[in-house]
């Protein structure tokens, strides 16, 4: 029964359209208390006092808890995947407006919320730093001492430093960029910026901790259940098996829900009061949880007289906010590809993760790569224009092909960069005549492509269980947050064991039951867990054959599993458990050169082509066509894969045209869906989505991850198209009508006055 490349609906489709799907949001437990947070009102300050008296006296309040209370329970109450820098509730200092300072517990969430507003705190205000480039100078220090975690093998080299805001700096030196610049025919440099924006899953962050019998169960809307178990166990000094983490479906994640978010808080609160505690953020509070890095990217290229890029230098500054979260990994991993999908012999990359007094930044659908592609594809387009070469021809001339080493030294393999570019060029009709508009409505076209290294080295473990009637269970800790991973894995199991994917029971993550997985992030699941699932299913198949032999059935015959069990056990009894773990090889980058010949087990490739119409009187940009293409290897479920491509592109459309967190004195001034504009149904341009013909030979049945690839090309393709239409270059996201109008007026010699 062929289960691969089958367009089946998601396994949980029925429960989702009927409103019955299980989310942590829905869960209430007997005796449960609701926690509401009192948050910092200053961006940087020493805590002088916290007055909780009125809140404690408020009728219906069960307890009020501060950082000092948590310290009584956990002497070192700091968590984080890269640094143990984030206190469960603020201790000594606050480092951003909105940082949790105290929690109020009550049976009624309204009571807890009211009481939280009765808390006040006094601070000795300290100077604050918001800008990533300013943070490079050690004038205002967000942290006095850095606290590296070393949880992940590839972050082992992180060392705590003093007197700096730089959480991690990654440097790559390939060839001799300085020498190549000196010999280049032209050297062209630009600076690009991106804004702080955020994920905003519609099921806001929510977690419940349930204490009992020396153990703790955490129900949470989280993408990394195995990591949460390990980190909570570490905080309490417990073995892993005293912490159980259960994750039902997620109402969106996009990277917001990776690593520990509310889990350490609910765990500490629940242990302190010995009752179940639920903390559910509001939409507004998500603006104080985790965001996407604002960046400044200085990029410089040297080209020879043939239009070949001979050198490229990249300096990237990542605005990580007050706590490192996974920012150091973003800084390093995205650093590998900062020079773009081009074959350049001399490359230097300097990538810096910086602490500032803003809401922390983490990974958002691309682990920093969309910020990089924005810069290098805008830059690449500008070079082509300056040289008078067609932007597509210029890219083709310099494209990184399979078999050639990428900047890090890793040789490209199964990366359909050329195919993605070709698909975009063909669909948009690049060589065909194009209506460029007239009068105040001008049209233009733009193309951009990007690529990404996967996260490595990471481990996935899967268990496949065949019951005595032949029905099959799959146990895995991958979290299905809408990307369709449960369905894809069921198809893989079905293919190996010759059962229908719809008949495979996929067990939701529950760390007491489902085995270790590094996390559902970075588009890693289909490749890593997909491989583990395939191997586990093959293990089960081999064990079934062994059971048949044991039962005395003749070799080589194809008995249904139910008959094998019956023959072996005399009745409908027993089961067969197949298991496998998958961890691809990896070589950490050299400390001196930042190079490694094995930085990733696979490459993601994505791009976009757009046609835009710019109103020169208002600066308004209308997207006439948005074409997305990506290499996902051989898709397991092409229908679901296409919706991943399309959804990622639309999300990036929001980050390109409208989404931005506005800060005033460190305070977010637009923390609501009313003032922070995400794409609605009226904002969707005519779209085409293409999965190019490709194969990831090391992937399960030729497949690989896709969740992020649709984000790569959208922003620079739009900026390139605007340039094509009206001759102005936007270098900072988001591209608002005002930004375009200002640029048009500057070009016309009549700049608009500043606000």
């Amino acid at each position, binding site marked *: 029964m062929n289960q691969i490349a089958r367009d089946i609906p998601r396994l949980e489709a029925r429960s989702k359209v009927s409103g019955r799907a299980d*989310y942590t949001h829905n869960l209430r437990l007997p005796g449960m208390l609701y926690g509401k947070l009192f948050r910092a009102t200053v961006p940087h300050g020493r805590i002088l006092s916290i007055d909780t008296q009125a809140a404690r006296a408020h009728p219906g309040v069960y307890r009020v808890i501060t950082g000092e209370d948590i310290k009584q329970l956990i002497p070192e109450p700091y968590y984080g995947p890269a640094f143990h820098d984030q206190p469960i509730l603020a201790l000594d200092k606050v480092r951003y407006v909105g940082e949790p300072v105290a929690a109020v517990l009550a049976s009624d969430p309204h009571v807890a919320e009211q009481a939280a507003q009765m808390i006040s705190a006094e601070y000795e205000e300290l100077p604050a730093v918001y800008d990533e480039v300013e943070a490079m100078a050690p004038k205002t220090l967000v942290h006095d001492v850095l606290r590296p975690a070393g949880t992940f093998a590839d972050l082992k080299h992180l060392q705590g430093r003093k007197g700096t805001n730089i959480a991690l700096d990654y440097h790559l030196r390939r060839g001799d960029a300085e020498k190549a610049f000196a010999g280049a025919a032209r050297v062209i440099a630009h600076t690009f910026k991106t804004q702080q924006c955020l994920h905003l899953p*519609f099921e806001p962050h929510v977690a419940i901790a349930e204490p009992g019998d020396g153990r703790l169960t955490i129900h949470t809307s989280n993408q990394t259940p195995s990591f949460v178990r390990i980190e909570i166990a570490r905080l309490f000094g417990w073995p892993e098996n005293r912490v159980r983490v259960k994750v039902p479906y997620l109402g969106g994640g996009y990277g917001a829900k990776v690593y520990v978010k509310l889990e350490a808080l609910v765990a500490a609160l629940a242990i302190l009061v010995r009752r179940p505690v639920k903390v559910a953020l509001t939409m507004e509070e998500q603006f104080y949880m985790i965001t996407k890095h604002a960046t400044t990217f200085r990029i410089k290229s040297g080209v020879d007289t043939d239009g070949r890029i001979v050198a490229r230098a990249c300096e990237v500054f990542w605005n990580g906010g007050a706590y490192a979260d996974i920012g150091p990994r973003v800084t390093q991993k995205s650093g590998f590809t900062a020079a773009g999908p081009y074959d350049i012999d001399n490359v230097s990359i300097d990538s810096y993760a910086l602490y500032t007094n803003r809401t922390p930044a983490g990974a958002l659908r691309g682990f920093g790569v969309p910020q990089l592609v924005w810069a290098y594809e805008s830059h690449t387009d500008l070079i082509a224009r300056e040289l008078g070469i067609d932007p597509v021809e210029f890219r083709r001339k310099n494209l990184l092909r399979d078999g050639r080493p990428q900047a890090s030294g890793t040789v490209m393999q199964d990366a359909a960069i050329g195919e993605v570019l070709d698909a975009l060029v063909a669909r948009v009709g690049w060589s065909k005549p194009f209506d460029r508009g007239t009068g105040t409505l001008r049209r233009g076209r733009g193309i951009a492509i990007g690529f990404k290294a996967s996260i490595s080295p990471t481990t996935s473990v899967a268990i496949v269980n065949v019951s005595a009637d032949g029905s099959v269970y799959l146990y895995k800790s991958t979290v299905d947050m809408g990307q369709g991973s449960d369905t894809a894995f069921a198809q893989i199991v079905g293919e190996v064991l010759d059962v229908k994917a719809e008949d495979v029971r996929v067990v939701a993550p529950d760390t007491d039951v489902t085995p270790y997985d590094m996390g559902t992030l970075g588009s890693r699941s289909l490749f890593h867990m997909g491989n583990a699932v395939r191997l586990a299913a093959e293990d089960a198949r081999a064990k079934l054959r062994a059971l048949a032999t044991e039962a005395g059935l003749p070799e080589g015959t194809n008995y249904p599993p139910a008959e094998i069990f019956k023959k072996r056990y005399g009745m409908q009894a027993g089961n067969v458990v197949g298991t496998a773990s998958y961890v691809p090889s990896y070589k950490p980058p050299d400390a001196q050169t930042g190079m490694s010949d094995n930085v990733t087990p696979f490459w993601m490739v994505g791009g976009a082509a757009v046609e835009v119409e710019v109103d020169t009187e208002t600066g308004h940009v209308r997207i006439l066509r948005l074409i997305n293409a990506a290499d996902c290897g051989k898709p397991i479920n092409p229908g679901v894969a296409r919706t*991943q491509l*399309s959804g990622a592109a639309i999300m990036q459309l929001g980050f390109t045209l409208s989404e931005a967190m506005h800060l005033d004195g460190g305070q977010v001034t637009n923390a609501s869906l009313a003032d922070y504009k995400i794409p609605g149904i009226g904002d969707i341009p005519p779209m085409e989505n293409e999965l190019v013909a490709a194969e990831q030979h090391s992937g399960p049945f030729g497949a690989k991850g896709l969740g992020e690839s649709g984000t790569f090309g959208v922003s620079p393709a739009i900026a390139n198209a605007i340039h094509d239409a009206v001759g102005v270059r936007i270098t900072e996201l988001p591209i608002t009508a005002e930004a375009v109008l200002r640029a048009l007026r500057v070009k016309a010699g009549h700049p608009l006055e500043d606000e």
Partner: protein
Amino acid sequence: MTSARTINFTLNGQPVTAAIEPHRNLIELLQRFDLFGARESCGQGLCGCCTVLVDDKAVSGCLYFAVWADGKTIATVEHLDADGALSNVQQAFIAAGAFQCGFCTPGFVLMAHQLLKEHPNPSDEDIRHHFSGNLCRCAAYPEIIDAVKRAAKAT
């Protein structure tokens, strides 16, 4: 906090009674009946995740006080397959793959029923206009438009 008030209303076809405080919204009331298909998300009536039908009109449950339900007829997404069979719209959403995480889906499904009642054969423009108050962060919008058209054909 003020004391509870007793209200009587029809919920998904059944007459029911509840005692509820005046500051609570309709979503909190529905949760007492173990109905979780309508979900409070943005809390400002902007995202449509909390869509509920009150006397056959779509309202944002997060902005609708529970006590206002007194004497009203309330329908949630759960009434659509009360007889065990999915509605045409629900089937079309599955066929079109018109959701990812599914959190906003009940709101879109209820709104699609409303639309098709008024416009059995809606244009793309009708669909876009009708769903201007429903947001989907996974951005399944193209598939949602496709689903509504499929449902229109099947109706």
